[in-house]
């Protein structure tokens, strides 16, 4: 069993691209991407997020990475309405997803340790 990851972005392409980048570091970890308004436009939809959290869950819970304001709120709504043990990481979405992917490969990983690592991405210095 492993912790699952979900990447939520306003742009479906961004969500999928970020998943690609993180998947490079993810071993067998399940990472799902969801984004867009469901009609090819920019936005996020709670139902779609909820379904995606459901598919990422393997019994050990899910850590959710989000991009901007309304993605956060819609992810919260999705988690409240669903029955998966899921938490949102307060982290930059791409960098947090990469960190989380690495953390989730630890056999002792829990949603808390994965979230913590995702949030540590805030402090990454790139230069």
């Amino acid at each position: 069993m492993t912790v699952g990851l979900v990447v939520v972005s306003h742009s479906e392409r961004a969500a999928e691209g970020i998943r690609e980048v993180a998947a490079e570091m993810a071993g067998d970890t399940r990472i799902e991407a969801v984004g867009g308004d469901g009609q090819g436009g920019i936005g996020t939809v709670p139902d779609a997020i909820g379904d995606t959290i459901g598919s990422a869950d393997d019994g050990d819970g899910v850590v959710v990475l989000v991009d901007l304001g309304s993605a956060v709120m819609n992810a919260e709504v999705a988690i409240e309405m669903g029955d998966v043990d899921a938490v949102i990481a307060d982290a930059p979405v791409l960098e947090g997803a990469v960190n989380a992917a690495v953390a989730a490969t630890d056999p002792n990983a829990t949603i808390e340790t994965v979230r913590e690592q995702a949030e540590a991405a805030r402090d990454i210095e790139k230069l």
Partner: protein
Amino acid sequence: MSGDGEAVVAAVERVAERLEAERDHLTQLDSAIGDADHGGNMARGWAKAAETARDLDDPDPETVAKTVGKTLMAEVGGASGPLFGGSLVFAGAELEGGITPETAVAFAETYLEKVEDRGDARVGDHTMVDALTPAVHTFKKSIETDERPPLEALAKATDAAERGVAFTVPIRARKGRASYLGWRSVGHQDPGATSTLFILQELLRTVA
């Protein structure tokens, strides 16, 4: 009680019409400090909500509120989806016993709390909370302390929301997309506060 439910459906239809009429206006406000979609978001979401509400069979107010909220969550997108929609679903539960002055106050308070929690926004952050707070405070006070009839309380609440909308203009945004603009957000009226006022005005017209 089922009469109440029909009145709520009628209110939702009025709101939908009004937001359609204000589509360009709201989008214009959102284009100054956001991403120019608030008019479309609201018009589309409430049109769909009105449609769904009309299809309900002998609905009670709680069911209408929750149905509209869920439809908004699914259709609106953006920040307004979870804020207007999610809060309506949540506050709708307060109408379980039908609409009375007491349940209306509980509904209003719960709605405001949910918006604040969800958006992590407080009054003065240049959001819909700035219109909601004076409206809810005034409504509650008019009913509970002044023992005014609900219609008068709602009229006062609507006036109060108008002051809240005006108050967003000269202050700096601290939440939502407008907050990215920093000081440049000063001088612009908040779109979500404005649409909140329009909704209140239509509720008032329905009961008046």
